[in-house]
């Protein structure tokens, strides 16, 4: 696989997400939204009632993160990705509603991968545990929904050159499968 670095700005155009390939390194700038387990559960309750979500979805990115509290004078605390698999039950429906990318860590389900192909969307991985490094690319953070969830509240973040890797693309590519197959030394 050919590794290259691509700059992305939000909101994302479908032409752009459709062109991304596994192994591509991306640097994201613009606005992204955060949500984890509890927020996703709440989103689905709203959708089931036919109500508006507190975040826009069209062309947007959701980052699965629960940051540490910001120290005084800082925009955000440490803010690395959480395990995406816990959001697998929710992601396909959000992609069908216009979401173009999610950022997390760890592998996704077949249902998510199919929804990525169907919607020409991508799944991006940020390096788990690289939370202090990633925080440097987050310039502002504002809680816009569910403050009662604490670390799990929904945040609107402005990011500049947020580093991530394309791990599932819209052509069915899966870097977890391809990368591991390449370096496996057992039959």
């Amino acid at each position, binding site marked *: 696989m050919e*590794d290259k670095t691509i700059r992305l700005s939000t909101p994302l155009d479908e032409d752009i997400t459709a062109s991304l390939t596994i*192994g591509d*390194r991306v640097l994201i700038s613009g606005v992204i939204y955060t949500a984890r387990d*509890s927020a996703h559960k709440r989103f689905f309750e709203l959708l089931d009632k036919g109500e508006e979500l507190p975040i826009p979805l069209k062309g947007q990115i959701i980052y699965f*993160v*629960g*940051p*540490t*509290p*910001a*120290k005084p004078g800082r925009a955000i*605390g*440490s*803010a*690395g990705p*959480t*395990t995406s*698999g816990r959001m697998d039950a929710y992601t396909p429906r959000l992609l069908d509603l216009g979401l173009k990318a999610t950022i997390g*860590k*760890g*592998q996704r389900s077949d249902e998510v991968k199919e929804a990525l192909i169907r919607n020409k969307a991508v799944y991006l*991985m940020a*390096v*788990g*545990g*690289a*939370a*202090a*490094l990633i*925080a*440097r690319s987050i310039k502002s953070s504002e809680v816009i929904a569910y403050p009662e969830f*604490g*670390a799990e509240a929904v945040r609107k973040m402005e990011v500049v050159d947020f*580093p991530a*890797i394309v*791990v599932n693309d819209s052509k069915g590519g899966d*870097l*977890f499968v*391809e*990368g*591991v*197959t*390449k*370096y*496996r*030394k*057992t039959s």
Partner: protein
Amino acid sequence: MKRSVTRQKDTMRTITTDEIIARVRETCIEAACNLGEDAKKAIIEARDREESPTGKEVLSQIADNFEIAETESVPMCQDTGLTIVFVELGREVHLDGSLEDAINEGVRRGYKDGYLRKSVCDPLTRVNTTDNTPAIIHTKIVEGDKLRMIIAPKGGGSENMSTLKMFKPSDGIEAIKDFVVNTVKIAGGNPCPPTVVGVGIGGSFEKSAIIAKHAVIRTLGSKNPDASVAAIEDELLARVNALGIGPMGLGGSTTAFAVHVETHPCHIASLPVAVNIQCHADRHKEVIL
């Protein structure tokens, strides 16, 4: 029968709960922000020998990250963990209050003052306790007049990929090895590899899990003193790294920094095996009072 209790407080060494609170507080913050030398060395060595370019990039970010965390005194990972505390209390120590209350108060203050994430909630209602308590405390009474604590903040992503199985004694060591390797394989990129794999063989249901956790917090580079167990550690590490899972599961030569195995005698009918997985942020700090 007449019971006789002699109180010999004057010959015992007193440790105050205030000292315990202060040390636990500062150690929680230090553990979250400053990675130990053993873990730093393991990351650097893995970065330098990684075959996969993507894996190398991931390990470079992880290495840069622990430097930034230490320089800026911020947590290396946003998951500052459930606080696990292994206590060895010398039998000649007199405490002026509750040990558990003191440890929890130290955790409460450390997580608040250190701007650490409060990641503890009720298991059913999922309502956060808001101060990262209660800590999980394992206490052992030992010889001497010291209080030793190992404080290990444990992240949820790696803990979630851990397993426990009650084997039949007839299953034998090969089945146990397959179980360990398969646990790592199924975990894939979820536990933030490269990991430390802690294996507890024997004891009872709960003892196997506790010794697996002991195995996880052992210093990287150490071997089980029993040569036959150390050989199992080496074999398992080679097999785990042959899986190709690599840094963050994207493929590569280092899936685990180490496999540590601890054993304990068990019931003649039983063979419990627990596998506890630790992410690359292998955080543990020792406190001696």
